[in-house]
């Protein structure tokens, strides 16, 4: 599944998500629900900055794997899976667990390589045995 399809599935199953962007740890945008590429870049850049700033507050060696910022205007979610990241915004008071679940599903879906359709199997014709009609 490609990034665009994964994001289309995400917005279809989660009505709470207003906007989402898939990007990597270098800031390259793989896909976004925003129509404008410049806006998607700015969205990904600001989400990456939020995650980077949040890393400063970790107390151990563990890295931040996901975050949720809840403000009066709405919520921001960022989820990381290795070098791949997804950021999303919702309105105020979303169902946090559900949004995280959907974002992780989208991240996994976007990472899955497209599998080629299996070749149809052909059956060998039975050779008539001597004596058979």
């Amino acid at each position: 599944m490609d990034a665009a399809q994964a994001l289309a599935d995400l917005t279809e199953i989660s009505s709470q998500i207003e906007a989402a962007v898939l990007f990597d740890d270098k800031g390259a945008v793989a896909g976004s629900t925003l129509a404008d590429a410049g806006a998607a870049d700015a969205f990904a850049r600001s989400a990456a900055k939020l995650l980077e700033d949040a890393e400063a507050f970790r107390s151990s060696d563990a890295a931040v794997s996901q975050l949720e910022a809840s403000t009066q205007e709405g919520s921001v979610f960022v989820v990381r899976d290795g070098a791949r990241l997804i950021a999303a915004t919702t309105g105020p008071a979303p169902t946090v667990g559900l949004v995280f679940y959907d974002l992780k599903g989208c991240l996994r879906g976007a990472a899955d390589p497209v599998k080629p359709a299996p070749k149809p199997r052909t059956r060998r014709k039975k050779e008539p045995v001597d004596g058979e009609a």
Partner: protein
Amino acid sequence: MAKRKFLTLLGFVTGMFAGGVLYRRSTSRRRERLDLYFDDGSMVSFVEGSPEAERLLPVARDVIAAARR
């Protein structure tokens, strides 16, 4: 007669209580916060007013603004 009076009073008190709960819910302001989840399974929450939240919440508002632009 006494039963009717009692039911009227009970209805009034229940209505007052339900109204109070609804009013408090609608007027209470949700506290802004930031929840961080680490890959070792731990989690930390910074509520508004803390130095961490004061630094990170403006960045979160920037993200929302960028997404809605």
